[in-house]
């Protein structure tokens, strides 16, 4: 989606760099890029073992011995 929006923005801005449409187009690109970056970060943090252990702490893989 980013690709599409960037192409759109470059097209719109070809004419007038300072037009409102140009600003809005690049603002959209910024919004989407930020959303994508947040999404990526959320995915990165998903450690499958951690999320499994949160739900099943008593299983062998997840037992913690604090001595």
């Amino acid at each position, binding site marked *: 989606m980013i690709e599409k929006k960037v192409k759109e923005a470059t097209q719109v801005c070809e004419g007038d*760099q300072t037009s409102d449409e140009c600003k*809005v187009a690049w603002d959209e690109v910024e919004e989407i890029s930020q959303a994508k970056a947040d999404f990526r970060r959320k995915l990165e943090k998903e450690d499958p073992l951690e999320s499994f252990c949160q739900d099943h702490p008593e299983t062998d893989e997840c037992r913690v011995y604090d001595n």
Partner: protein
Amino acid sequence: MAICTVYTTQLNPTCSSISTPSKPQHLGFHQNQVVFYKKTSNYKRSKSAARPSYLITCAAAGGDSQTVVIGLAADSGCGKSTFMRRLTSVFGGAAEPPKGGNPDSNTLISDTTTVICLDDYHSLDRTGRKEKGVTALDPRANDFDLMYDQVKALKDGVAVDKPIYNHVTGLLDPPELIKPPKILVIEGLHPMYDSRVRDLLDFSIYLDISNEVKFAWKIQRDMAERGHSLESIKASIEARKPDFDAYIDPQKQYADAVIEVLPTQLIPDDNEGKVLRVKLIMKEGVEFFSPVYLFDEGSTISWIPCGRKLTCSYPGIKFTYGPDSYYGHEVSVLEMDGQFDRLDELIYVESHLSNISTKFYGEVTQQMLKHSDFPGSNNGTGLFQTIVGLKIRDLYEQITTSKTQTPAQATKA
């Protein structure tokens, strides 16, 4: 929240008592009720002055006026930003999106704190903005009346149904219920734009990233994305600049604290944006906020901690501190240029800073280490964000103790 204070001077065995605390106790209730409960002891007046008595007074001090509201102005990125995560971590607990609600909600909730993204108050969704030709930075795209009403309601202890702006779809989703928290943080592009909202804020922060650093950070963020190039990133920043300068930037004059991020001066011609020079600009005379200082408050200091006692690697660390004037206000500016490489550098610096509102020695270092994977953990951005978090905690505690003291009454009958 009703605040009850129990004061006792001495215990009279002829009276029945509920509790015998030696210092005031605070009991909290979660309903907005005014409960007045008075119990005085029965005994004959005598000539001696000291008579045991106790009085319990519960007063709803103007509703849940213990909700402290903090405003954070930051460009793009809501609630999930590093600053927010550090802030909520200082107050305790991890802040997460509301469970069971809209998965694209921008709100973060922890035990003490709720973070609201001001994008939720967009009056125009993405299509609407395109039609009208306004960016999200433009005040015309935001409903300040609703923002004011809801922030005021939360501050007064009333829950609200807040709209959700979905950043993925670009649409306005059905509202979610927000209950008044102890600390409410409103984060977004315009927390200090509207004067009514500004007056509701107990403390406000502006995150001022210089253009070079902004460019470097956006490159890091977007270069891995297909569709982006150096030119497109540059064009995006340039196109947003006029609206940014007109509507967002002026808010920094109202902020109680500004964190300004600039490229380093320690490395000539460095344009990677890795080493940063960060300034913490703190307004003087703000209630409940005492600025951080180095060595001697009000004087001008230049300090390089690296030397005989501390060895640092290139480019090292440099601090400056001093009074200044910022948009017509008296401020104190603490500046750090450089990077931390090792734990002992961090603790060394912490031990020389004053007024950082820590509860124990090394708290700043501990907080920084807790989130060593966050960006900025080795430079002034992480350091000052953590310190601002501690100052806000201090401010919150001062506000709540000052509010509980007003309705308290102790009588000796």
